[in-house]
């Protein structure tokens, strides 16, 4: 799905995922000033949403101290020095000033669900409740023409200021008719282009919106693609994973609130603060990997002793995400911690290339020659057999020919 132009741009744009966390006093003083000014500016603008973080925290039985603990963690996550903590807290309080239009395309709404349905929401999740959601198809009560009018109004009022958050892939096959929305039967593609056009930046949330995800899995009947394949000439931030971690969504929006800019991105447009880590290098089972101690079967002695899940198909060695560090559900656990290998959910084409329950070498892929799907080793052994037969025939023929020559 990658276009040639992008492929070329990508080719030599290697930046690594290193973030310089020590840019000197002058840089940070400057940054602090910019952020303070921006927050003052925001504070003057009317709260777009009536929900304040204080009120939400109180109903959840959390106090200011919990909130400040969260702020210092968020500060570290964004790789800022600790004296930025009060600014982070302030920014979180002002989250309700940043207008957000959240659109829902071809997906399972799992990212919204992950944020909304947790029974002990983290502060990250609570903050997402306070953001000024001007429009959200999944949550709002309005429907049909009323919803349409509401969207128009929000886009008009906050022109050039709102963040366009996208969840779900865009089906392009059959002129996009696999997904239409609203009273006018707009296709998802038209809908996305219309909303993205006047936004300050586009945030693609979840793997469907970033890389096409599950809907784009082979044979991709709906021609599903990610936002970056449709929207051009806009700042796009990709927050993949299935579901995207609320901590990363909040972190990105916080960064936007604080600076008005998008955070540093990697070559797949993922924020480096979140996707600059390889699962395999921050995995608690890594010692077992190096030792060659693997779970061989679900529930075996290895599984009971937390051995490495590589042979059960863990794709941690090829996957970049921070879930091994921030985890999910209030930091309770994460997939590998719970005993299942990583399925590479934050990588492009994850469903076809990563999400199998066996190591890469044992997985059936389309062979380079086409035809039936085979494992690399099956294909390789086929190749070796063919070569062996060829050599055998040539050797036998040579011997017979040689004998005849001798007879003459």
């Amino acid at each position, binding site marked *: 799905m*990658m276009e040639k132009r992008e*492929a070329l741009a*990508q*080719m*030599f*744009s*290697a*930046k*690594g*995922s*290193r973030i310089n966390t020590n840019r000197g006093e002058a840089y940070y003083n400057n940054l602090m000033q910019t952020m303070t000014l921006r927050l003052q500016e925001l504070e003057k603008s009317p709260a777009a949403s009536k929900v304040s973080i204080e009120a939400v925290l109180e109903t959840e039985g959390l106090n200011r101290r919990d909130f400040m603990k969260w702020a210092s963690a968020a500060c570290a996550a964004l790789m800022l020095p600790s004296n930025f903590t009060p600014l982070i807290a302030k920014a979180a309080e002002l989250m309700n000033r940043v207008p957000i239009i959240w659109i829902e395309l071809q997906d399972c709404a799992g990212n919204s669900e992950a944020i909304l349905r947790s029974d002990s929401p983290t502060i990250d999740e609570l903050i997402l409740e306070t953001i000024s959601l001007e429009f959200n198809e999944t949550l709002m009560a309005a429907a049909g023409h009323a919803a349409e009018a509401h969207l128009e109004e929000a886009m008009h009022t906050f022109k050039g200021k709102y963040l366009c958050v996208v969840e779900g892939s865009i089906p392009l096959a059959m002129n996009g008719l696999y997904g239409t929305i609203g009273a006018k039967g707009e296709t998802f593609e038209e809908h996305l282009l219309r909303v993205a056009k006047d936004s300050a930046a586009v945030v693609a949330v979840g793997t469907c919106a970033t890389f096409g995800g599950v809907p784009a899995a082979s044979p991709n009947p709906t021609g599903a693609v990610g936002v970056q394949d449709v929207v051009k000439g806009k700042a796009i931030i990709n927050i993949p994973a299935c579901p995207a971690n609320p901590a990363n969504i909040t972190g990105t929006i916080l960064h936007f609130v604080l600076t008005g800019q998008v955070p540093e991105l990697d*070559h797949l447009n993922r924020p480096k603060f979140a996707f*600059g*880590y*390889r699962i*395999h*290098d921050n995995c608690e089972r890594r*010692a*077992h*990997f*190096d*030792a*060659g*101690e*693997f779970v061989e079967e679900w529930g075996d002695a290895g599984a009971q002793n937390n051995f490495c899940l*590589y*042979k059960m198909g863990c*794709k941690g*060695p*090829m*996957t*970049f995400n921070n879930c091994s560090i921030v985890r999910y559900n209030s930091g309770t656990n994460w997939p590998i911690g719970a005993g299942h290998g990583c399925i*590479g959910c934050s*990588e*492009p*084409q994850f469903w076809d*290339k*990563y999400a199998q329950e066996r*190591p*890469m*070498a*044992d997985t059936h*892929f389309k062979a*380079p020659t086409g035809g039936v799907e085979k494992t*690399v*080793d099956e*294909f*390789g*052994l086929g*190749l*070796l057999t063919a*070569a*062996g037969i060829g*050599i055998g025939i*040539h*050797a036998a*023929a*040579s011997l017979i*020919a*040689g004998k005849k020559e001798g007879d003459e």
Partner: protein
Amino acid sequence: MSYKKIERMTGFMRLNHWVVAISMVVAIVTGLYIGHPYYQSFIADPAVDKYVMAWNRLAHFIVAIIFDVSSIVVAYLYFFSRFEKPYKKLLPTLKNIKEFFDVLINLLTLNRVKKFDSSHTDSFNSIFFFVFHMMLIWMLLTGLQLYVHGLASGISSIGAWWPWILHVATDWTLVATGGTNMDVRLSHHYTMYAIIVWVMFHVYYQVWRTIFWKEGDISIVVGGAKYVKE
């Protein structure tokens, strides 16, 4: 009938050949383990002091480095060899193209037709070796791309230039193989089989030449010379 001795490989070149051959075996054995750990570590020690996978990976990288060095040596020999310089045999001149097909015809007619001077390196074998060196370079580039995944921090004990240069030199393999980390890994694994096929044919062909040409070709890589009828 007497035989003339023709020097073909210096001691150093022969050493290089066997180092590459042994490295290849080690790379295959360890590479397959990395892809699918095919034996259990029956070592009673706790995980902290047995490094079965880590040793395999280490061995894999060490032979990879030996490959690097030997490839640089071979690249140098392409231009500055004391013997027939291989690059001269790779150029698509009429003479080389003719020689290439003459050697191929010799192979396909089971040595019935032989219309070229077999005492020196021929165009067919030069191109055949060139293919091998290209595959080795491909293994190197895809291997280093897999390797740099482990340097996500962008820093290394020898400095930030190392991961940087690896990214600059090998990130294009991501695009070339299909866009994902997995594609690079698959390509690394597939190419291994292509290399094994190459080795099979190489060994067969050298033995075949020795038997049918009766010029002792196999001893080039042992004693350094072959023997041609005068």
